[in-house]
């Protein structure tokens, strides 16, 4: 592909890893600015802190507040440097496996304290 529309091709698309497993949605795209002031694609941002501000008004603020309380990552959204993106079509495909990325805290917490404790969770 020789060009991309950031809002159409990237924002709100599903991100999958090299095995096709879901990583998250593109909740926001970070643009870097180089020394000449020209912007470029720096990273994909995943998580409620990235996504909340894109919903305008009270609903967005409610979501971002909820996310903070529900143990989502205090260190900010998951940041995937753009050079890890291998291909963009119906989903954004990464060149790496999901395990190499930071796991969302909510997922770890629920696995440890709830789902993981139910017999049969490893089937």
């Amino acid at each position: 592909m020789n060009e991309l529309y950031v809002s159409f091709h990237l924002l709100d698309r599903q991100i999958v890893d090299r095995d096709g497993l879901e990583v998250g949605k593109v909740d926001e795209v970070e643009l870097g600015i180089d020394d000449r002031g020209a912007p470029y694609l720096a990273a994909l941002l995943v998580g409620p802190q990235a996504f909340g501000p894109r919903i305008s008004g009270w609903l967005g603020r409610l979501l971002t507040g909820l996310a903070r309380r529900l143990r989502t990552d205090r260190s900010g959204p998951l940041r995937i440097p753009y050079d890890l993106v291998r291909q963009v079509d119906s989903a954004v495909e990464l060149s790496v496996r999901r395990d190499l990325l930071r796991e969302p805290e909510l997922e770890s917490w629920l696995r440890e304290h709830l789902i993981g404790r139910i017999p049969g969770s490893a089937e």
Partner: protein
Amino acid sequence: MSDLVTADLIGKVAYHRSGEYLGRVADVVVAPDPEGTWRVTHLVVSHPPWGRLLGYERDEETGPWLLVMLARRMLRRNTRRVRWREVRIGEDDRHA
């Protein structure tokens, strides 16, 4: 942290550097440079604001006939691509 996110561009008011009012930014076009970095080349501006484009601004969206006609009519009249260097982003904000 982050220098800029798309919410700092999309939805913002845009002016041509000559002063002409262009509308609001609907999308950001990027293309790869020789080293593989994807650089912003153009902005898609829309006036009056069109909102979600659903994908009809691309040639790959081919139907159904009714929706294509409606979408292309509105798009041709309202949206255009402008080179990044020629755009100035305004201070005015769509309601946050």
